[in-house]
């Protein structure tokens, strides 16, 4: 690690701490914001997420090696952490820290985009089912039942069989298309209750059409559980991506993702445990942070506490 990489890393740490503070100040004015930060792990969760996002964005600055570069295949193979390679090197003599940092880009993007696709789809299907009820609801929800009953990994294996090696965009879509079932059930339940509220009838009475009623009046009032489920969902998608890459059908090497790093290191678990430990740690940290944030969000956005 060069001096300026260390410096950049330090800056990233400071910056993530500052981001937590800024967010706390900014939301402190609202009751919900104060409730959020009253959660003991919420600040830490935000901090960890901010740190990984900053590292992902500034990956070339905080690292000194190209993540695909085999530095010295003879002498620097499977080296434990040292001053020049702070997390050590893997079996192909690549700098692990560089790969974790650049892997964060791919893993976080796949997680966020995959969840975006899933939440969008799930919200649409759930809202339509809950709003129209009757046969629309029955048809859509039986479809969701089928989707929930299908083992996801087989669907993904089928996609691999169709496409061969999955390009990143397809991977995101496939993950998104197989992750929305739970969200749609949640949204449906929420819409079923919101649609009975008086202001929905009032909106229909001023002449709003179904689309306007659903998107302007029903969904914004059902946003809290959707946001919470999205925060939890990113963690799940991240794990799914890791699992797929571990099985060799996710992100294609040599591009680094946390999942295929674990796959690369798995055979050497005994001789070079750091090659799997650090990407595994990164996944665990981000997923835990997301769960902590989702937990705090659920408490903060719970409308039953609004009056307090």
């Amino acid at each position, binding site marked *: 690690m060069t001096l300026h990489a260390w410096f950049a890393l330090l800056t990233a740490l400071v910056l993530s701490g500052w981001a937590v503070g800024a967010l706390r100040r900014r939301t402190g004015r609202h009751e919900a914001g104060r409730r959020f930060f009253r959660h003991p792990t919420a600040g830490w969760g935000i901090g960890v997420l901010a740190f990984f996002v900053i590292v992902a964005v500034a990956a070339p600055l905080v690292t000194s090696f190209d993540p695909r570069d085999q530095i010295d295949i003879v002498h620097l193979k499977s080296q434990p952490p040292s001053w020049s390679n702070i997390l050590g090197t893997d079996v192909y003599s690549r700098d692990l820290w560089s790969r974790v940092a650049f892997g964060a880009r791919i893993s976080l993007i796949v997680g966020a985009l995959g969840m975006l696709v899933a939440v969008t789809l799930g919200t649409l299907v759930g809202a339509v089912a809950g709003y129209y009820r009757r046969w629309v609801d029955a048809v859509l929800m039986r479809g969701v039942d089928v989707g929930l009953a299908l083992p996801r990994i087989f669907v993904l294996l089928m996609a691999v069989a169709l496409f061969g090696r999955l390009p990143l965009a397809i991977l995101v879509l496939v993950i998104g298309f197989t992750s929305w079932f739970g969200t749609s059930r949640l949204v449906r339940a929420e819409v079923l209750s919101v649609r009975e509220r008086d*202001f929905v*009838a009032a909106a*229909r*009475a001023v002449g709003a059409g179904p689309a306007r009623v659903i998107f*302007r009046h029903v969904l914004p*009032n059902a946003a809290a559980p959707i946001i919470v489920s999205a925060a939890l969902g990113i963690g799940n998608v991240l794990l799914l991506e890791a699992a797929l890459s571990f099985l060799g059908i996710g992100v294609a090497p040599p591009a680094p993702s946390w999942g295929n790093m674990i796959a690369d290191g798995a055979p050497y678990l005994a001789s070079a445990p750091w090659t799997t430990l650090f990407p595994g740690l990164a996944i665990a940290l981000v997923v835990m942070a997301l769960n902590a944030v989702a937990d705090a969000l659920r408490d903060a956005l719970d409308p039953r506490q609004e009056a307090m």
Partner: protein
Amino acid sequence: MTEPLLRVRDLKTYFVTEQGRGTARAVDGVSFDLYPGETLGIVGESGCGKTVTSLSILRLIPEPPGHIRPGSLIEFEGRNLLALAPPDLRAIRGNQIAMVFQEPMTSLNPVFTVGDQIAEAAIIHQRLSRKAARARAIEMLTLVGLPDPAERVDHYPHQLSGGMRQRVMIAMALVCHPKVLIADEPTTALDVTIQAQILELLERLQAELGMAVLLITHDLGVVAGQADRVVVMYAGQVVETAPTTALFDGPLHPYTEGLMAAVPRIDAPKSRLQAIPGQVPAATAWPSGCRFHPRCPHAWTKCTIEEPPLLGDGDHTARCWLVQEPGRRKRQPETE
């Protein structure tokens, strides 16, 4: 008289009950006319079908479980609202016929500013730009007498009191200058002083905008002060209809008499209030014959068997056999 603006004929709105066993005949053959510029009061106890009638006019009945029976007619300016396609119906809702709801606390969307909600109808029906719609919202807030309209327009519903919210609801309903305003118990949830202000406001706006108002209430005092004509409903039917003064001078139906006796008076010596014995029967099982007979002090055999039509002459009619046989009327037991 001129052509009625809104004609309701034999309106029947039924609800299938939860178990699918019974049918609640919430509105069962209601007919009335609403003329341009007048205020028509619809009065009745809770559960007599007032609200369902008003929701049926805009076809806001949740379907299922509710449905409007074929054979019903709701005609607005010669067009049958029950036969309109959804887009045509939406073009009328909020634009030609608008509605003020009972509960100002829950009828506003908590996540939007009141300005956004007032502007909504204008954006939908008149395709106003957001900026023009905002200006219109401020104008409407001024019209309904909300203080600091330019500031209030950006407030959220929870920042306003009940009376202010009801003013906002009225502004929301009137933004497109509708020809008919349906006000469903607009003052029930408010305290008395605010109630008077809101009624005064409605009266003023009606005069300014020249609209017809369908005022639905359980409060005879409100009707006496506001309405030109009154329709009294009981058990899903119209039981009496009359010009307001005629109704208060001489009610024909024992139910209307009962309602009036149940209003406390400050000009009479203190006495116990007269309640109508019993309750409105369940809508799944209306009584045979006259639906009021189990609670009626004058009922005789004919009332339990044969259902009376609306009897009487001209503009004062009642669904009661006493109109034909006044001799059967019993002396009130507690005559002063």
